[in-house]
């Protein structure tokens, strides 16, 4: 199995978790409860992003200048999402607006990776390199 395929499966599960958070936001769940539910969502998204950066972005960025630039753009979104989760954790702020931004940014980002970064990685790195050896 290729790392890109594995990351797409993770995207599908994370998208459903994002849908659950979106549902709670529309149901006007209490801000303190939303903040704590977001702690687990942050953990799952960050775990996924860290694996993606180590196993895909690092080798891809070394392939070409255009790949390096695309990876930089993707990593900027990871950083932005981490910063937004830091703001959500601040009990002095209402987390709703930041959470909506996280949901929108992350959903768009997954689509960009699946339609841009992953196909580029498959072309530049090759199937053998992308194969996960512990699968």
């Amino acid at each position, binding site marked *: *199995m290729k790392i890109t*395929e*594995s990351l*797409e*499966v*993770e995207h*599908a*599960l994370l998208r*459903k*978790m994002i849908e*659950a*958070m979106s549902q709670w936001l529309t149901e006007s769940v209490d801000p*303190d*409860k939303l*903040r*704590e*539910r*977001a*702690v*687990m*969502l942050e*953990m*799952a998204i960050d*775990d*996924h992003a860290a694996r993606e950066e180590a196993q895909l972005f690092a080798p891809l960025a070394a392939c070409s200048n255009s790949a390096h630039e695309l990876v930089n753009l993707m990593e900027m979104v990871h950083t932005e999402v981490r910063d937004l989760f830091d703001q959500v954790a601040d009990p002095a702020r209402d987390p709703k607006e930041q959470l909506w931004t996280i949901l929108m940014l992350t959903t768009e980002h997954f689509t960009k990776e699946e339609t841009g970064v992953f196909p580029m990685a498959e072309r530049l790195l090759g199937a053998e390199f992308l194969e996960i050896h512990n*699968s």
Partner: protein
Amino acid sequence: MRITESLRIEHDLLRNMLEAMSRWLTESVAADKLRERAMMLEAAINIHSAREERQLFAPLSASSDIAHDLVSMIERVHSEVRDLFKQVADPGQNPEDLLRDILRLTNEHFTEEETGLFPLAEKLLPAEVLEDDNS
């Protein structure tokens, strides 16, 4: 990609979420915070188990009597975990012991599926049934 491969990838992401919950339990995070973080964990586990029941258990159960019995046993664990999450959500109960039960049961359950049920499904079900229609 086969559904069993997709489910193994989801197990890995869920195991990391279980580890995070285990860490919060040892760090003595407040009960009301644990309860809310568990809501997102429950959503993730339910998304995974619903997909597993629909895409793997239903066709596997119909393939032989032995498979049917094994699937019934595994589905009982899904029900038990759902019941435990309901108890966690009850503000009248301390969630810590219940969450420890969920973590232990779910970790053992994932291992049983990976070593027993998934190999059985890969042996009994034809390739076209095993193909993950979400991937």
